[in-house]
């Protein structure tokens, strides 16, 4: 099995009396798009900063791309969109990106080409000649994302990349991230859980500086072990369904009219098989179906995990 792109074990970080990270454990598989989910002040930005070497951990082990965080070792291999960092105001976007690319070891010509390429990713090519100080908040954010893609690094950390972006550019960025799936490891933090669910393979819930849960998004949201059916007003044949399905757990939320069926997945029992069996029985009992699906939303799981 491949070594993870990023692994943290029992990492602590204090700022005076504030204990920002309280023994975070994390393992980010190579090639995955990994979501870091948590409320404000959970320690996500601190965690990113520790991984990048901006902050020093007080305790714990951090392995980034098979070694300790050391800028000279992962020069050009690790990139990040720091949350609050500001670009200088006076030079143009192109000059900034070319400079950063050159710091990664590129020749002037390659750096210029690379700057143009990454500006294309965030749809900012037409603003390459604009002074950074004249850009809007969303444009600055997109330049920040662009610089993280310079030189196609192996590991990219994006701290709230879509915050402040308009819906179209947020969508485009999500698509751009999705297109890198399997090619490089991307860790994204965001409050938009629907967005994370759509693009991420793996996720971790962080709260109060600790990892609450982590794993594949499909496992966290029980995609393979839970189905739900939304019933329209009318018959509620819950007991009949329980009897029909046998060794499964059936939960009925009468307020939201959602029926949840949890089961042990096996070679002959996939989520699709359970859906088919449940629907057959419900329809046979005269129930009216208004929706059906697999698992729970990431948001739901997050709320459950942090309750």
């Amino acid at each position, binding site marked *: 099995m491949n070594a993870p792109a990023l692994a943290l074990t029992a990492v602590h970080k204090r700022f005076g009396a504030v204990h920002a990270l309280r023994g975070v454990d994390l393992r980010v598989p190579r090639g995955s798009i990994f979501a870091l989910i948590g409320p404000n002040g959970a320690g996500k930005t601190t965690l990113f900063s520790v991984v990048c070497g901006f902050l020093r951990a007080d305790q714990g082990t951090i392995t980034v791309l098979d070694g300790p965080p050391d800028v000279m070792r992962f020069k050009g291999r690790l990139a990040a969109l720091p949350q609050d960092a500001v670009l*200088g105001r006076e030079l143009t976007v192109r000059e900034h990106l070319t400079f950063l690319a050159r710091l990664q070891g590129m020749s002037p010509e390659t750096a210029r080409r690379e700057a143009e390429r990454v500006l294309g990713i965030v749809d900012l090519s037409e603003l390459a000649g604009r002074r950074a100080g004249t850009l809007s908040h969303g444009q600055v954010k997109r330049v920040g994302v662009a610089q993280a893609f310079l030189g196609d690094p192996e590991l990219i950390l994006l701290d709230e990349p879509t915050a402040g972006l308009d819906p179209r550019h947020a969508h485009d960025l999500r698509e751009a991230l999705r297109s890198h799936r399997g090619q490089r490891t991307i860790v994204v933090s965001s409050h938009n859980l629907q967005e994370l669910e759509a693009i991420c393979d793996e996720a971790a819930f962080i709260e109060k500086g600790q990892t609450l849960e982590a794993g594949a998004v499909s496992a966290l949201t029980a995609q393979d072990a839970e189905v739900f059916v939304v019933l329209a007003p009318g018959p509620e044949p819950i007991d009949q369904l329980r009897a029909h399905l046998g060794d499964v757990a059936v939960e009925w939320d009468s307020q939201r009219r959602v029926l949840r069926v949890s089961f042990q997945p096996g070679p002959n029992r996939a989520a699709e098989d359970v859906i088919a069996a449940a629907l057959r029985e419900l329809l046979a009992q005269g129930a009216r179906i208004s929706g059906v699906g697999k698992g729970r939303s990431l948001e739901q799981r997050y709320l459950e995990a942090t309750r």
Partner: protein
Amino acid sequence: MRDAWLIAGFDLRESIRTRRALVLALLYLLVASVTSYIYVEVVKFAQQATSEAISGISDTGEKMAAAAAAGAAQGAGYTGLLYVIAGGDQQIAGHLATYPPMVLVFAWFSLGALPWLIALTSYDLVAGDLHLRTVRFVALRTSRGAFVLGKLLSQVLLVALIAGLGMIPVLVIGGAYLPSFDVLDCFLALLRAWPILALFAFAVLGPVACASQLVRGPGAARALATFFLFVLWILGVWALFTPAPLSLLRWLTPFAYKTQFFHPDLLHRLMNAAGCAALCAGYTWLGFQVFRRRDL
């Protein structure tokens, strides 16, 4: 070093487009213009006083003798002034005399003003990037040492550039107001003075760079840089009147290196330049001991 030069070039390009660089340039041009103008006025006054003194003398021989005496007196006064500037060092005073007086006045005032101008304009060379977290874009791509060195080099280049600009008013004012002004001679002397200003800026930037690495906010960095320079200035003055070995403490201050740039011996001047570089490196290194460990 490649990264440091890249950072220096980028930072210099950014710096020269800022309002602060414009202020530094204007202040420096003001200093150059005012000192040049004062010099011109002093020369005119001396010439006028001499001509008034000898205008009442009717005898041609006596007139010539009086003019010669006045010239000699002025010459003696100037030599005495050089002796004072040289800190009582006869050799240095002699070498100072090889500079056109107007260039010397400009260089001397510049050396006096530079530390305070630098404290006012370069204080945030690191603290500014820490404050805005701009450093985070660079910190993933190069070492902290290269970052500080690049920032330092950019400020030295900026000061050298602005010091070069300061030569223009000297040539313009001298050429416009002094009838016997030798533009070429003055220009060549200014070129000799230019590296002195840049090297002295290096020495001054050491304590300023140290202060800028110790604190995060630009305001605190400015206050600390000014405080450092003030303390070093006091230390330098105190050490002058203190017997050895305590008097050696003056070499810890940039101000001690000013006069030695005008020593006639080239090796001595090179040693002095090396001293400036070492002082800059020493103070910067002290600050770096905090910066290399700090959270960005």
